[in-house]
């Protein structure tokens, strides 16, 4: 892997990003909006419930972690689709750039944006709702990393699908997180779901993170086996996603799709 070429990817995206008001807006607007809505709801529930658990921490913890996952899914896919919009794939892949360097480059940019977005959310939550991140202790980091990994592997699959089928499937970028949210048990326990939905939830790495977030808030401990399972699922799906992406890239070269948009 070559650092100069990875730097080229980072630099290109930085130049693009700093001129795109809506992408800068996107980092700060949605976290603010979601915190506003869910924060107020959690305050209302806390006030109206007798002997209620800490709704603020549960809901805002869910919102912050979910937003992290959502951004991880969208940012990387959007960076890729921008190369398609910019008709830039042919420019990049006619240089010595390897596919792995390309992926590392866009993930490097994504991690910075995700960290900035998450810190901003934590700061707002602290400021307006007295949210205490320490209630999640070390789990905040473990959960954050697992969700980012899940988001990235999904985005790698989305990129492969966009590469293969073009602009028409761009809707996946925005839809996947929303489709997965009901099964990930972000705001309610797994038992709340009907049986068939529970079976889907159990194969999602995200479910174990949100389940254990609540466990951490209620009891101060987590099910380590479930955290390990979440990471194991990420590893398994991650390998599948990368293999799928590389194979799709090969198919794209066979079908001339890399130069379709030049």
């Amino acid at each position, binding site marked *: 892997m070559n650092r100069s070429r990875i730097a080229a990817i980072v630099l*290109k995206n930085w130049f693009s990003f700093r001129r795109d008001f809506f992408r800068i807006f996107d980092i700060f607007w949605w976290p603010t909006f979601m915190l506003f809505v869910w924060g107020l709801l959690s305050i209302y529930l806390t006030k109206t419930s007798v002997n209620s658990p800490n709704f603020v921490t549960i809901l805002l913890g869910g919102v912050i972690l979910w937003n992290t996952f959502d951004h991880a899914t969208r940012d990387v896919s959007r960076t890729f689709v921008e190369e398609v919009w910019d008709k830039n794939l042919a420019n990049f892949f006619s240089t010595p750039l390897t596919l792995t360097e390309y992926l590392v480059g866009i993930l490097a940019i994504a991690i910075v944006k995700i960290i900035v977005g998450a810190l901003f959310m934590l700061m707002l939550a602290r400021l307006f709702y007295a949210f205490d991140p320490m209630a999640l202790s070390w789990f905040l980091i473990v959960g954050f990393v697992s969700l980012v990994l899940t988001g990235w592997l999904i985005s790698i699959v989305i990129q492969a699908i966009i590469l293969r089928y073009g602009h028409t499937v761009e809707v996946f970028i925005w839809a996947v997180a929303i489709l997965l949210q009901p099964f990930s048990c972000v705001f309610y326990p797994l038992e709340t779901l009907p049986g068939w939905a529970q079976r889907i939830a159990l194969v999602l790495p995200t479910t174990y993170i949100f389940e254990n977030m609540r466990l951490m808030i209620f009891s101060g401990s987590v099910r380590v086996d479930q955290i390990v399972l979440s990471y194991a699922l990420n590893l398994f799906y991650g390998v599948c996603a990368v293999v799928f992406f590389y194979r799709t890239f090969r198919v794209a*070269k066979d079908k001339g799709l890399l130069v379709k948009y030049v």
Partner: protein
Amino acid sequence: MEILSVQSLTKSFGAFVAVDNISFSVAEGEIVGLLGPNGAGKTTTIFMLLDLISPTKGEIRVFDKSYKEASEYIHQHLNYSSTYVELPPRLTVWENLLVMGFMYQVDNKEARIRELAEKFGVTPFINWQYQKLSAGQKTRVSLCKAFLNEPKLLLLDEPTASLDPDIAQFVRKEILASQKRGMTVLITSHNMTEVEEMCDRVLFINHGKIIAEDTPDGLANRVRKSRVHFMMKDGQKRTLSFAKKAGFSAIAENRFVTIDIDEQDIAYLLASLADLGVSYSEITIDKPTLEEFFIEASAGRSL
């Protein structure tokens, strides 16, 4: 030494065969033209040479290496410019070239970019966003990008399209100067004068097949012989008689005589007519052109 070698290269998209079993090679320091009508398979061939499209069959070796064994090495010493390929529109010219400088690990990137920008007349708009450039300005930027890594092999797809004549002439000179420095160039162009001026050899491709390969003059001479027109003052009959004896095709119309002749025989013809005391007030020599070959070959006439 062969810089590029293509063997039995074929590309099919479903039932459509875009490139059909072509083979050719390009030697170090050579400038080779890839000509053909629209849809002939030139761009698909270029994209296969860049490894952006995988061949259905056949082998490509660049610098005596295949992409499977040395993709990074090949791409590091190769570059291309195309009128039809865009750079990211929201980035400025400088930013685009800087990104490419990192991509090719160019030493002293900023100095190199400034040098090329000055050379290709890009400096006045180097801080403009790419999307705000005219077609000609974009072509110049694309050429800066192509020369950024001082490639050993340069693939140029219509390098002077949309350029003003003075800039186009400069670009041609620059390509010829690069050839002197050892650069090898494969070029597609619809400007036949440009191809005649620059190319050592031309591959003519139509319906995915190479149908002719020769020097620009060699291809032009396949269409017809040179045509010498005389406006006669004296000796029209002697001229026609001489032409008949020498085996040249000649026709007379009023005071004009036209003789079809191989280019190397023109000197002999003129000397012989002088010996015969023939006098003429005007002479024009109409040599066959590559453009005529292009038109005939594109129409599918056998040459």
